[in-house]
């Protein structure tokens, strides 16, 4: 692989010239050894994060949360409650940082925007026929434009896993490019649904495909399938963004989503970021947690560090 940024950039524009060249490029990426990858993720999971480092990690993790509600039953009231919580996560302690964003369906974007107005909390919207992505491109783009028009700062799109798994990489690439364009100034998070991609080799290929097409973030999953973010698939994506920046100079963010519920887990992910991509990614501009129940555990651990005592679920808000 080329090592200088200029020749790399040139080579990387060539690879998207056709389905064939894109396939050759993606299949030419170094393979992933499952056992080794999972062993590395597990070994980083044994880092012992205590006292000042833990306090730092908890506040950092809170600031990285995309506080999410993606239910068919979402109402304006629910979204307003979520927005209020994003702005003041801990009503008993105003020193708690705000979350990075609230993440909602497109029809709730305007409500969410109003709820977080003036706080610095961003509004992210899942679009492109989330979570299945099974709709015509026109429909997906309309979904995106709708969210952007309502004020979304960030768009979370799902890729067409069917096209990816059947090897139609250029179709996936073109869709991401189109969505990126439709997103305008909003930052684009590309969701791979890693649980459905099934192999680590596929996850690495999808990561590069997403980055080549202009993703601002690559994101593991929708949270709607059985296997969502894991330490191993997140580690792999962190390697991908690290290598992509080394080759092109372009930095891309990472967002594990789904299944991260405890402070302990969140801290393990931060260790993965710290020791894989590096400290440059340790801000909410480059790393996010897609989570809804994580925040309360972070807050309870934060209260524990502040008071020396465990509180309980009644000392944090239900939404």
């Amino acid at each position, binding site marked *: 692989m080329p*090592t200088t940024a200029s020749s790399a950039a040139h080579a990387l524009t060539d690879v998207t010239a056709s389905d064939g060249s894109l396939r050759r490029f993606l299949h030419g990426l170094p393979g992933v050894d499952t056992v080794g990858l999972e062993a590395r993720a597990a070994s980083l999971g*044994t880092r*012992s994060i205590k006292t000042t480092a833990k306090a730092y990690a908890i506040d950092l993790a809170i600031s990285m949360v995309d506080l999410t509600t993606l239910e068919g039953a979402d109402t304006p009231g629910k979204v307003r409650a979520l927005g209020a919580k994003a702005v003041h996560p801990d009503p008993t302690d105003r020193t708690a940082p705000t979350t990075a964003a609230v993440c909602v369906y497109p029809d709730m974007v305007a409500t969410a925007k109003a709820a977080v107005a003036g706080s610095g909390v961003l509004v992210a919207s899942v679009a492109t026929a989330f979570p299945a992505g099974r709709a015509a491109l026109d429909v997906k783009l309309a979904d995106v434009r709708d969210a952007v028009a309502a004020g979304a700062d960030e768009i979370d799109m799902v890729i067409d896993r069917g096209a990816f798994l059947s090897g139609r990489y250029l179709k996936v690439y073109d869709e991401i490019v189109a969505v990126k364009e439709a997103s305008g100034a909003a930052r684009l998070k590309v969701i791979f649904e890693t649980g459905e991609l099934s192999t680590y080799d596929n996850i690495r290929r999808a990561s590069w495909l997403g980055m080549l097409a202009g993703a601002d973030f690559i994101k593991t999953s929708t949270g709607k399938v059985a296997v969502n973010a894991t330490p191993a698939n997140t580690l792999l994506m962190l390697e991908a963004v690290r290598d992509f920046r080394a080759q092109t100079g372009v930095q891309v963010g990472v967002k594990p989503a789904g299944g991260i519920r405890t402070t302990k887990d969140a801290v393990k992910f931060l260790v993965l970021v710290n020791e894989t991509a590096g400290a440059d990614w340790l801000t909410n501009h480059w790393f996010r947690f897609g989570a809804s129940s994580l925040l309360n555990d972070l807050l309870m651990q934060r209260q524990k560090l502040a008071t020396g005592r465990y509180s309980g679920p009644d000392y944090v808000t239900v939404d």
Partner: protein
Amino acid sequence: MASAFEYAPAPESRSVVDIAPSYGLFIDGEFTEAADGRVFKTVSPSTEEVLSEVARAGAEDVDRAVGAARRAFVKWSALPGSERAKYLFRIARIIQERSRELAVLETLDNGKPIKETRDADLPLVAAHFFYYAGWADKLGHAGFGTDPRPLGVAGQVIPWNFPLLMLAWKIAPALATGNTVVLKPAETTPLSALFFADICRQAGLPRGVVNILPGYGDTGAALVAHPDVNKVAFTGSTAVGKAIARQVAGTRKKVTLELGGKGANIVFDDAPIDQAVEGIVTGIFFNQGQVCCAGSRLLVQESIHDELLDSLKRRLSTLRLGDPLDKNTDIGAINSAEQLARIGSLVEQGEAEGAERWSPACELPSAGYWFAPTLFTNVTQAHTVARDEIFGPVLSVLTFRTPDEAVAKANNTQYGLSAGIWTEKGSRILAVANKLRAGVVWSNTFNKFDPTSPFGGYKESGHGREGGRHGLEAYLDV
């Protein structure tokens, strides 16, 4: 918020282990002073703090211990295998119960990170006792005849790099097959063996079945030379191994030797690069490189040399060196001042011969014995750092162009203990592995151990196998 994610110190508590100010020899189920009253001190390599004073066995003590083992052999070898198994299972369970204590002790005495003693050494120690406990009543089915007999008294000499694990590799198969044991731990790391003596008492092991004689080389020499020892098992340096081989030649003693190595870790251009980098790190920086089967020669296909070296250097920059009791420490202390001096002189020689030396920015503690992780590039087969075992955190990087060249370079060594192959191509793994002259060949991994897997060397890396079914043979009259 601080500006960076600095990990606060996370030290494992020392209070879980109670180190006595002095220890005796363990002979015939009792702790006793050395006949001539000699003692030596054992220090913690990370702080140079004196941990304890230990009796130093002399020739007279060796004679007493071998005598005790000989007397115990009569009853021990006559026990049904299932009875011996009960003792071994009991020992294994006690090791598990006391594993935190033993891990801290081993880290204090050896200098290796608690992460390794806790997650690698101790689980393997227990696993070896469990595994050989399982064989004790099935020896007739091991392929050595229907009723294979033990040899008698085993004289065992072990090194300082894995004090308790090497003890387990030696004692578990010896006891399972009905032998009794006199074991000499290394002079820099005698404590875990003495704690093991206590475990033998806790398990109610009959007197004299296991005897522990801390001491220096002269103690080991006396043990090996003792006429009533039937079997010699040694793990350590090639020079001492050769001396032992000369000493026992012409006697009826059986001998197994597990000696030095200069393992080749071969990375092909289609390797899973990120995992290969991890494997290279595990291969040479595990236990500060003080591993006889370390992958100390990295053979990289020329086409990916620069890319791989970039990745490797970046990865080395994330290694955390320091207090071995800190749970976040990756690289601990070198075991002794002597070993540190030896590493230093070989590294200087490497530089003098023209190899290019590199280490990540790394602050070394002021007390104790420390050596920063080190890479040598521009290394050729003619360089000393490509030929001599350094036994420290020093990796020599060489290149190759074709699989044949990789095999030729990997085999071009007086050793033959281990090798590694990194490629996504299964057929290449098999083809190359078959041509490598090494006792263990790992593919897409490195430094993985399991009691069921035999371990041992070719050429000057020794002879005989430990572990697995093969490991029984060394302790049976076959």
